[in-house]
């Protein structure tokens, strides 16, 4: 297997439906798929590939709670404790007046925290000059399936045939 490490078979598809239906078929046939690359999201693809559901929503919620607490803490401290003043007959600590800013900061923390998590978890970042390694057309009009040969027990010919049978227009070999 050592000579196969870093060697990939790349199936290029013309159609999003074809690639979506190819994934369960190939997995059933015993092919281990590394990833599918597409110019737009294909609904159901992550489930077909067996990716676990993203937990980014939980992170977003935690960031939101942090923002909400920070906003309330800031206003209660400044208005109620550090420099208490009665303005417009309102209590120094009057929660109803704090609602707009609490809401805004909750949204701000959630949005920025979630997007930062998204970048970090996907390895995206400013100055990352990566590009589609397997086929550059995958950001234009092609749907690309990458299969790492070192992780598959099937032979190159078997996988190539399976890819062709599932609707791949081209099957290329890439070595990194």
């Amino acid at each position, binding site marked *: 297997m050592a000579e196969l490490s870093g060697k990939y078979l790349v199936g290029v598809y013309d159609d999003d439906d074809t690639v979506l239906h190819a994934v369960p078929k190939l997995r059933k046939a015993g092919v281990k798929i590394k990833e599918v690359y597409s110019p737009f999201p294909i609904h159901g693809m992550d489930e077909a590939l067996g990716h676990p559901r993203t937990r980014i929503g939980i992170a977003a919620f935690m960031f939101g709670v942090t923002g909400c607490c920070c906003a309330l803490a800031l206003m209660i401290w400044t208005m109620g404790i550090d420099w208490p003043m009665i303005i417009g007959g309102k209590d120094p600590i009057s929660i109803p007046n704090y609602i707009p800013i609490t809401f805004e900061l909750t949204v701000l923390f959630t949005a920025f925290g979630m997007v930062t998590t998204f970048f970090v978890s996907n390895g995206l970042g400013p100055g990352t000059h990566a590009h*589609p390694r397997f086929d550059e057309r995958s950001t234009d009009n092609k749907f690309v399936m990458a299969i790492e040969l070192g992780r598959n027990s099937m032979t190159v010919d078997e996988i190539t045939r399976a890819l062709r049978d599932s609707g791949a227009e081209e099957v290329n070999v890439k070595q990194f």
Partner: protein
Amino acid sequence: MHVTSPVREPLIQGGKTYADVTEDICRHVEGAPTKEWKIAFGISLIVLAYGTVCLAWTWWEGLGVWGLNKTVGWAWDITNFVWWVGIGHAGTLISAILLLFRQKWRTSINRAAEAMTIFAVLCAASFILMHMGRPWLAYWALPLPNAFGSLWVNFNSPLVWDVFAISTYFSVSLVFWYIGLIPDLATIRDRATSKVSRFMYGTFAMGWDGSAKTWARYEYISLILAGLSTPLVLSVHTIVSMDFATSVIPGWHTTIFPPYFVAGAIFSGFAMVQNLMLITRVVYRLEDYITLEHIETMNKVITLTGSVVGVAYITEFFIAWYGGVEYEYYAFFNRMTGPYWWAYWAMMTCNVISPQLFWSRTLRRSITFTFFISVVVNIGMWFERFVIIVTSLHRDYIPSSWTMFSPTRYDIGDYIFSFGLFFTLFLLFSKYLPVINMAEVKAVLRSTSAQLPGKIAGVAKVRQRGTAEPAYNKDKE
């Protein structure tokens, strides 16, 4: 499963393939600037330069150069601010609320509308800075203990709420827009021929590779950002309206302001989107993507929000009479028949009557008429803010203070500055970034295109599907 609705017209015309979408939308980004673009950009720069001189003079001399007086202490500055913030709202509405409602027609216009939002909010923010008088102390609006000890900003004040609302709105909109741009930037990066553009687009594409895992997370965060932006956009204009509503000035002290301002914002925002889209589609030859169907749908939104605004005008008038407060009643009666009657009736004609013409399908689908009405609506919404602000202020509680407001050349020049800024930024955006979201258009292409399902990208084969095909699609195939 892709379903083509038999009752709706296709949203993308011309039998496009995925490759065609990339080609058509990247064309203007990759090509040299056109003559029209250069002329428009030149004019915008001249306007911006003139406005900058006026603005510099405003700051140099102080706010005394404006036509404000002791009674009318707020006029064009706050009018322009509210107007620009309102214009920004349509972008977020299209990108967030319509995404939550799964409206596919948003895909062709959301990118440009979001860009419009960001530039409009920048213009609005410039008026906040302008009317501070000493803009170099703008940071005093932030919650920092200032030089006099630990004296903080007043968190009970709607003006401080504005600082948080506008800055949050701007930054979240910017993030939302940028996240949407990344896949398209990657497309341009992978097509780029020159080293410079490959480097630039590569830097901003952040290494996007379009893997299934990334797309799944991308879609998830887009949905959450839309869910966050929806109440955010409502909160921003609600808070802007509270700048007025929490006061005791007759004509401002109105509980109807929050929903009324939000409806007005969407109304004027959609009118501006129409103006920009009608020009963009012709200049960049994108008629197949921004179709009559899109224009008609936006006109329906304009009719709806215009009607809401009309109802709000009548309701506040009714309440002024029914509430029995003589100052309130006088303020509204004075708006109609007082010295600013022309502004009031301009507002009523532009905002209440003109959009009702869109009940006619012929007019709704006429490009020239749509452009004309959109300009009229924008003018009308500017007058609405002017009427609310100036007519309420110019008659004080003490008749000896009664006065009129007339703009000086610096009031006008500072407004011109915002137009120069807006159009310069929009033209730069439309040249260097794709004006239509390619990834999203491709995602809805099959179900909304005139191209028959199964023929896209030249693949004409019977696909295996888990569920039955709708009868309509079967007939076509």
